[in-house]
C-alpha cells in the first residue's frame, strides 16, 4: 500500500538517513497517539505562527493609541476589548506572543547548554571537580527560583534582558543534575573507553560522545520547564521588573489592567488566558515527549 511507510519502517535500513527518518517517524506516531500531546503541539504552533505573522494577524497596531476608544468591552471590533489608552488588547496579545517566544527561546538557549556542559563535565571527570560543581549546583537548586530571580533583577535593574538573564541563572542547575546523572550511566562504558584508546581528547569525548546522549532527556526537561519559565517571566513583568511599557508583554499588561479590574475586567484577564494557554501547551507537549522518549518514567497511562 503506502510504500513510503514501509520504507520508513524497514527493519534493515539501507542508509543512515533511512534509519534516522524511520526512528523519527516511529516517535512521531507514538506522540500522535496521545490527544493531549497533539493539542499541546497545536497550541505551540499557533504561538509560533502568531509571533511570526503578528503584523498580518493583528487587526490594529499594538502601540497605536486611540483615546476615543478607551476601555471598551470585548466586541466584534475589539475581540478582547481595549485598554486605558484605547489600544486593542487582542492585537497586543498577538504581538505579546513574540516577546514570550523570545524569552522562552533565549532562556532555553542560555541555560540548557550551560547546565548540560556543567553536568557532563561533572559526571565525566568525577572526583573533586564533581564535588565542587555539584556543590554549587545544589546551592542554586535549594533556593526558590522566583525569589532568586527577583533578587538578581533587583541588582541588575529592571528590563527584559535582565529578566532573561535572571531566569537563566536560576534554571541551569536542574539541567546540570540531569546531564550528570545521564553521564554517570555511560561514563565507564566501552564505547567511551574505545574513543579514549583511539586517542580522543577529553574535550572531544565530552562534546562528540557524551553531550549528544544527554540531549533527549534534556529536551523533555526543558519543555516541561517552559511553563514555569513563562510564569516567572510574566510574574517579573507583573511586578514591573521585566518587560517595560509600552511593550505588550502579557504579565505587564495584567499589571496595567489591575487598576481597572473591578469595572473593566477584560483588561487584566485577557492576557492571562494567553499565558495559561501557552503554558498548558508546553505542559501537554512535555508530558507527551516524556512518555515517548523515556519509557522508564511514563507509559503507565
Amino acid at each position, binding site marked *: 500500500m503506502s510504500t513510503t511507510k514501509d520504507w520508513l519502517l524497514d527493519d534493515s535500513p539501507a542508509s543512515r538517513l533511512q534509519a534516522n527518518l524511520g526512528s523519527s517517524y516511529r516517535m512521531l506516531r507514538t506522540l500522535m497517539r496521545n490527544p493531549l500531546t497533539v493539542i499541546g503541539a497545536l497550541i505551540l504552533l499557533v504561538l509560533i505562527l502568531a509571533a511570526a505573522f503578528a503584523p498580518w494577524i493583528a487587526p490594529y497596531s499594538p502601540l497605536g493609541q486611540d483615546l476615543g476608544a478607551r476601555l471598551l468591552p470585548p466586541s466584534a471590533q475589539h475581540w478582547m476589548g481595549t485598554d486605558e489608552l484605547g489600544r486593542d488588547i487582542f492585537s497586543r496579545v498577538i504581538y505579546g506572543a513574540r516577546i514570550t517566544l523570545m524569552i522562552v527561546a533565549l532562556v532555553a538557549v542560555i541555560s540548557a547548554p550551560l547546565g548540560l556542559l556543567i553536568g557532563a563535565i561533572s559526571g565525566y571527570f568525577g572526583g573533586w571537580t564533581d564535588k565542587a560543581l555539584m556543590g554549587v549546583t545544589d546551592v542554586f537548586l535549594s533556593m526558590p527560583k522566583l525569589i532568586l530571580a527577583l533578587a538578581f533583577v533587583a541588582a541588575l535593574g529592571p528590563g527584559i534582558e535582565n529578566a532573561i538573564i535572571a531566569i537563566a541563572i536560576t534554571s541551569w542547575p536542574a539541567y546540570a543534575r540531569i546531564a550528570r546523572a545521564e553521564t554517570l550511566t555511560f561514563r565507564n562504558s566501552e564505547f567511551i573507553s574505545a574513543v579514549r584508546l583511539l586517542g580522543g581528547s577529553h574535550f572531544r569525548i565530552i562534546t562528540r560522545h557524551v553531550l549528544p546522549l544527554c540531549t533527549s532527556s534534556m529536551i523533555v526537561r526543558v519543555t516541561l520547564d517552559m511553563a514555569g519559565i513563562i*510564569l516567572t517571566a510574566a510574574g517579573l513583568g507583573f511586578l514591573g521588573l521585566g518587560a517595560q511599557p509600552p511593550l505588550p508583554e502579557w504579565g505587564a499588561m495584567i499589571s496595567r489592567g489591575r487598576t481597572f479590574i473591578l469595572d473593566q475586567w477584560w483588561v487584566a*484577564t485577557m492576557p*492571562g488566558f494567553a*499565558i495559561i494557554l501557552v503554558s498548558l501547551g508546553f*505542559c501537554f507537549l512535555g508530558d507527551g515527549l516524556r512518555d515517548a522518549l523515556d519509557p522508564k518514567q511514563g507509559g503507565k497511562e
Partner: protein
Amino acid sequence: MATYASGARHLTQSVKSLGGFVVVTLLTFVGLMAITFFIGRVIPIDPVLSVVGDRATQEQYDAAKIAMGLDRPLILQFVSYVGDVFQGNLGQSVSTNRPVADDLARVFPATLEMATLGIMIGVGLGVPLGVWAAARQGTWIDQVIRVFALLGYSVPAFWLGLVGLVVFYANLGWVAGPGRVDIFYDGLVEPVTGLLLVDSAMVGDWDVFWSALDHLILPAAILGFFSLAYIARMTRSFMLDQLGQEYITTARVKGVSEWRVIWTHGFRPIRVPLITVIGLSYAALLEGSVMIETVFSWPGIGNYLTVALLNADMNAVLGATLVIGSVFILINKISDVLYRVLDPRSR
C-alpha cells in the same frame, strides 16, 4: 534478632549520616549567603548607593561605605557579612528606616499564617483527589483531575488572585477584600504569636477572628490550589505504582473490599514519600505567596519584598531573600530527615 553489635553499628552510621547532614545543611546556608552577598555587593556598580538610596547625603554615603567595609578585600567582606547575618544584623531598610531583621520578624507571621492554611487546603483536597484519580485510572474523572492539576502549573498566581477578587469579592461578595483584617479591627489585638487567627482566638475576640478568617480564606485557597495541583499529581503517580503491584492483586483476589484495598493496602506505603512532597509544596507556597501577597495587599514577607524591590531598597531585598531562602532550605531538609526517620526500610 537485633544483636548489640549491629545496633551499635547502626548508631554510628546514624551519627555519621547526621554529621554529614549537618555539614551539608550548613554549607547550603553559606552558599545561600554567598549568593545574596554576590547579588548585593558584587553585581551593583555602586553597592553603597544601592543600600542608602539616591537621596542620601554625602555623610550618610560615607558612613555606609565605612560600615560596609568596602575598602577591604572581598573575602574579608564576605566573612564579616556572614558574621553579621548570624548575629541577626541584616542592615537598615531605606524605606522603613528600621533594621531589616525587625521588619522581617514583624511581617513573617502573616505569610506563615497564609501558607499554613494554604497547605492544609492543598493536602486536604489534593491527597483524596490524587487517590481518586488513581483508583479510577483512565476514566473521565481521572482526566478531569489531571487537567485540573496541570492547570496548577500553567495559571499565573497573580492572575488567579485578581480573578478571584473580581468573582468572589466584587461580584459574589462571599469574602472580604484585600488586606489582613477589616480596617476598624486593625491593631485591636496585641500580637503575641503574630498569627492573627491564633492571637484573636486566645483573647477571645471573635469579631477580629472572623474578620481575619474572611480576609485570609481567598488568598489561602488560591495558594492551596497550587499545592493541590502538585500534591494530587504526585499522589496519583505514587498510588498507580502501588496499585500495579502484585500484593494488591492478591488482596483483591482474597476478596478484600475495594475501599480497604485502596486506603489500607495502597495508601499506607505512600504516606512516607508524600511527606516529602508536602514539605516541598509547603516551601513552594512561601515562594508563591510573593505574588499572592502583592495582589491581596497582604502585609507579609512577599509584599515586603516587592515593595522593597520597587524602592530599590537593597538591604531589605537581600534580607527577605535570605529569610525565604533559609526557610525553604530548612523545610526541605526537615522533610528529608522525616523521610529517612519514617521509612521503615532505613531503620
